[in-house]
């Protein structure tokens, strides 16, 4: 089976998201929104509860767990020097609510999300994209501009940043909008084959003499 590679314009529509399958490769053009902050996720949920306005328009868009180094220039404009994904699993407690309440069609980062998020993603028509951890140089080359910086009062990688990108990727569609997850598959495979793996580990163990008393 050969890999399917797609090139799509972001923000992604629900239909586009649903056309993708786990294992596909995707190249991104258009607008993406990124943040890497745990406090940001907590603040987003409070904002959705009415505590304050959202930092920028997020409904029906994408939200990637990607850190960015943003720098304010003398004229007040922002420049982003580099981007790179962070581990998504630490945002597991917040993602199902964010996916549903914001109607997200693409999330991502690295390391995946849990079953509760996968359920939410099925409802909204949303994919999880695996960006290369350690892909800073390649991913940053796709930056074409900084469109908006939300919550600039936060640490640089905690800010919510809308970026213009061209040819970002390829990234792996690691969870699709139909409930298929490469991460869950890998965990299931590890569990299913564990008895065989351990038997082989034991069988190969050479005897070395020792006094154990």
């Amino acid at each position: 089976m050969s890999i399917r590679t797609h090139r799509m314009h972001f923000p992604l529509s629900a239909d586009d998201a649903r056309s993708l399958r786990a294992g596909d490769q995707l190249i991104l053009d258009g607008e993406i929104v990124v943040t890497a902050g745990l406090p940001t996720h907590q603040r987003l949920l409070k904002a959705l509860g009415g505590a304050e306005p959202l930092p920028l328009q997020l409904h029906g868009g994408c939200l990637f767990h990607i850190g960015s180094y943003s720098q304010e220039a003398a004229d007040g404009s922002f420049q982003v020097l580099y981007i790179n994904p962070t581990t998504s699993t630490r945002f597991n407690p917040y993602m199902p609510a964010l996916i549903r309440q914001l109607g997200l069609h693409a999330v991502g980062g690295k390391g995946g999300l849990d079953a509760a998020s996968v359920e939410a993603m099925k409802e909204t028509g949303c994919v999880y994209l695996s960006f290369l951890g350690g892909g800073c140089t390649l991913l940053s080359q796709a930056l074409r501009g900084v469109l908006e910086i939300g919550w600039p009062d936060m640490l640089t990688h905690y800010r919510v940043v809308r970026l213009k990108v061209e040819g970002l990727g390829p990234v792996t569609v690691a969870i699709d909008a139909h409930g298929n997850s490469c991460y869950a598959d890998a965990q299931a495979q590890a569990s299913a084959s564990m008895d065989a793996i351990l038997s082989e580990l034991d069988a190969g163990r050479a005897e070395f003499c020792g006094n154990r008393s």
Partner: protein
Amino acid sequence: MSIQPETVRRVTAKLYDRSLRGIPSDTRSALLALETIDRSETARHTLRIMVESADAAARDSHFICSDAGVPVFFVRVGTQARFAGDVRRAITDGFADLVGNIQPPLLPHVTHPLTLERGHAGKGMPLTTFDLVDGSDCVDITCSPKALGSGRWEALEIFSFPDRATIERYVIETVCKAGSQPCPPVVIGVGVGGSFDYAAKMAKEATLRPIGERHAEPLVADMERRLAAAINKTGFGPMGTGGDSTALSVNVNYCAGHGFTPVAVAFNCWINRRTRARIYNDNRVEIVE
């Protein structure tokens, strides 16, 4: 002649900078080797992009990963080495120099563990360990910055008179718990025996061993080979999206202890940050890798 603090300061800053912009040559070779044998097409594709990413960072002198980690230095001091000033101060100053001058700038990852306040400096930074080497007239410094992805999943458990099967199962269990999260394929360092602190240190040191080098003792080398084969059957694969390539290497270090046996498991993500230099008494500096 004596080693000047200025030399230590300059070398530690340089080692950190270099560790962010390239991967060790053994690691690049190991990724390419896995790319030829992994049965998953997605895995092979991801491994190719990894090498491409590392090459692009080296070519452009850019960062491979935005998580520059926290600074970690292992210093081996020869008993015949002489210092003309404070060494720990020099390493701290070297890190401050790096933070002040590096381009592009580093994200603030140094975190106060009790308040979660983040910045570029903090109590006890850089994390530095010192060991003595009898008879040597130089200082070996290894820099291996630690980032969140791999640092989060390291683990230690203490067993009572465990057999090897128990120890090996704990390693596999820890790898499965980490799963997709530490950016596999990972270098896995295992420390067995000694005491709580020794086991963790041995595991960390084991991650620094050149890939392909097996432990000198057949019993340990056998354990390393079997563990690597077992881990590469779990199916997590590159970036955890499936494949045969979960471990770049499994390196085990041990020392004797009592009947309570700590087993520590440490990870280095695929970029396997590791740079080394040697400083002689005449302030000559040899960049080892």
